[in-house]
């Protein structure tokens, strides 16, 4: 035990850092649960309690979510954590934080197997542990993070599977789960498997007739996609490039945009939930490391570096098939390749034969820039981001629903404005509404029980007192019971009472 700890002390430290950064206040920062997280969480809760999703479908293979049909794996992964932590932020975000942490460990084993260099493997896992890109999505329940985990797990198991059928089957199971985790995985996993086959076809074909087992497993995992093919096209139709005027041109510019230095190092993604303002998806100190790392990999004659470069080239294909671009979420296909390239660059610097104090000076300058960069990122993330991007995270809904929940029994109807989007799911989630009662009413998302959700205006139809919840700009009854403020101080909701 002692020798294991001594031998792996750096890896253990990196894993502790990775876990700490992903679990520290993961329920509170990001500011609040986004609508997709709430929907996923409530459906997981509904399946846990009743075996059916919010619409009453028994053990669904796809989850209907606001007009889209998403693979159901992410909802099923939430079930154990919701059973333990309850229907709340921790229950929803725990699996993503856990799998994000484990992805760091997998990266270590991946690089160790590919490049057979412990230093580069440690650097890779360290860079991923502190990566702004990966942290943003490890602290957020999104199925793309599950795709990353299962995809990397599949590669690691495959690389260790030399003539071992059990590991090959485990690898195939992992790829199958990845395929059913996220819409984008339907493009990414086939592309990734193609690249793996191009570089490792000898190892694959060495299994000969036994390949029928992984083939059947992959086919089984394709069934949910085939059975729900029409509904799975809906998302593609709304964001796909085929709907644009010049699809090829859109694809090329979208592909290239994911290698834009501004996207990577200075500005990040424009979508508020995808990156911290003032930061890129990667640290700026990684820029010179990545340049050195790319040169290092290009110069290598062996297969593994070429495989990594091929991964780097094809990772932009899935996000380029949709708009807008660049897209940090769809571009999670780049995890953990940029960290690996930067690690190669770091290894080049540390092993460079530079005379005298020049090397020490260079390392010192890099370390100083890195320190400043990392400290600034965490300051921006914990202090600035919640206030600047609160509206992007549906901030205010939790406090509103909890306030309404305390007093709802005194009212015959509760009308909530739909201005901020999908209030019904927030009401179900934060009110912990019984799925058994909700499922028969799920066809109509404009009302359930005594709750009504309105657009520009609302007309009272039931006798008795009514509670009306409106956004800050909208007219409301005179008697305001409570005002809900966002974390940045903006007024979000007025909760008012009327008898007329």
């Amino acid at each position, binding site marked *: 035990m002692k020798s294991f700890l001594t031998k792996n002390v750096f890896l253990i430290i990196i894993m502790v850092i990775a876990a700490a950064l992903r679990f520290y206040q993961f329920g509170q920062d990001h500011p609040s649960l986004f609508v997709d997280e709430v929907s996923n969480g409530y459906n997981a809760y509904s399946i846990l309690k009743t075996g059916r999703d919010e619409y009453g479908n028994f053990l669904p293979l796809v989850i209907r979510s606001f007009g889209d049909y998403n693979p159901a794996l992410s909802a099923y992964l939430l079930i154990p954590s919701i059973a333990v932590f309850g229907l709340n932020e921790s229950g929803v975000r725990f699996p993503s934080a856990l799998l994000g942490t484990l992805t760091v460990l997998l990266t270590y084993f991946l690089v160790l197997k590919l490049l057979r260099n412990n230093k580069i493997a440690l650097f890779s896992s360290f860079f991923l542990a502190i990566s702004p890109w990966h942290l943003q999505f490890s602290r957020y329940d999104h199925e793309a993070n599950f795709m990353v985990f299962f995809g990397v797990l599949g590669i690691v198991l495959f690389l260790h599977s030399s003539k071992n059928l059990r590991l090959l089957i485990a690898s195939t199971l992992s790829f199958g789960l990845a395929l059913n985790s996220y819409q984008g995985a339907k493009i990414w996993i086939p592309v990734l498997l193609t690249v793996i086959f191009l570089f490792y076809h000898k190892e694959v074909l060495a299994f000969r007739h036994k390949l029928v087992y992984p083939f059947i497993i992959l086919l089984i995992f394709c069934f949910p996609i085939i059975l729900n093919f029409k509904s799975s096209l809906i998302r593609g139709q709304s964001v796909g490039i085929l709907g644009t005027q010049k699809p090829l041109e859109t694809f090329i510019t979208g592909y290239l*945009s994911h290698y*834009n230095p501004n996207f990577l*190092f*200075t500005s990040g993604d424009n979508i508020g939930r995808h990156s911290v303002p*003032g930061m890129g998806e990667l640290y700026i100190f990684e820029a010179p490391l990545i340049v050195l790392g790319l040169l290092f990999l290009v110069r290598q004659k062996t297969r593994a570096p070429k495989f990594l470069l091929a991964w780097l080239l094809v990772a932009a294909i899935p996000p380029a098939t949709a708009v807008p671009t660049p897209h940090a979420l769809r571009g999670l296909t780049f995890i953990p390749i940029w960290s690996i390239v930067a690690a190669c660059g770091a290894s080049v610097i540390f092993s460079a034969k530079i005379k005298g104090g020049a090397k020490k000076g260079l390392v010192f300058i890099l370390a100083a820039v890195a320190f400043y960069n990392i*400290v600034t990122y965490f*300051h921006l993330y914990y202090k*600035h981001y919640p206030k600047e991007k609160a509206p992007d995270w549906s901030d205010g809904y939790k406090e509103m629903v909890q306030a309404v929940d305390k007093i709802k029994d005194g009212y015959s109807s509760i009308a909530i404005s739909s201005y901020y989007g999908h209030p019904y799911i927030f009401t179900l989630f934060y009110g912990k509404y019984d799925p058994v009662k909700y499922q028969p009413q799920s066809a109509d998302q404009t009302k359930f029980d005594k709750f009504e959700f309105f657009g520009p205006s609302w007309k009272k139809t039931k006798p008795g007192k009514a509670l009306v919840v409106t956004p800050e700009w909208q007219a409301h009854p005179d008697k305001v019971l409570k005002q809900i403020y966002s974390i940045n101080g903006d007024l979000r909701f007025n909760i008012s009472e009327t008898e007329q």
Partner: protein
Amino acid sequence: MKIFLLIIFSAVIISVRANASLPICNLDTAKQAIPPRIFAEQTIDGRDQNITLTRFLHNKIGIYASEFSRCYANVFDPNFIYHTVGIVGIITWLYFVYQIIQRKYYFLLIVLLALPLLPFLKFSLLPILFAYKLFAIIGLGFLLSKLK
């Protein structure tokens, strides 16, 4: 055959309409960004935060460096290069960069790294557009010379 390919692809690279443009990002915009950014960032930090920490994290040097980095990186935007030299040209442009590092042509490397200073110092973009086309053609020459 190689010369024929060089002429054909060079003509393709040259004929790409250089309609690439960059967002306005120069010395003036970098200076102008400093006061509002400092105000916004220090306001969010609030008065309860240690002033030294606030100044360490949000200062003129850091903001100026951030703005300069953004302006600098704009010139290496792959889409800007693509719209200057085309799809074939961007591949040969990358190969040119790889070769000048491999062959230790430090002068060309310095020229490449200094080019983004032109728009930052409010000079015309035209030298960059011409330089990128030239680099793409040289890169094409390097590539063809490797073919047997």
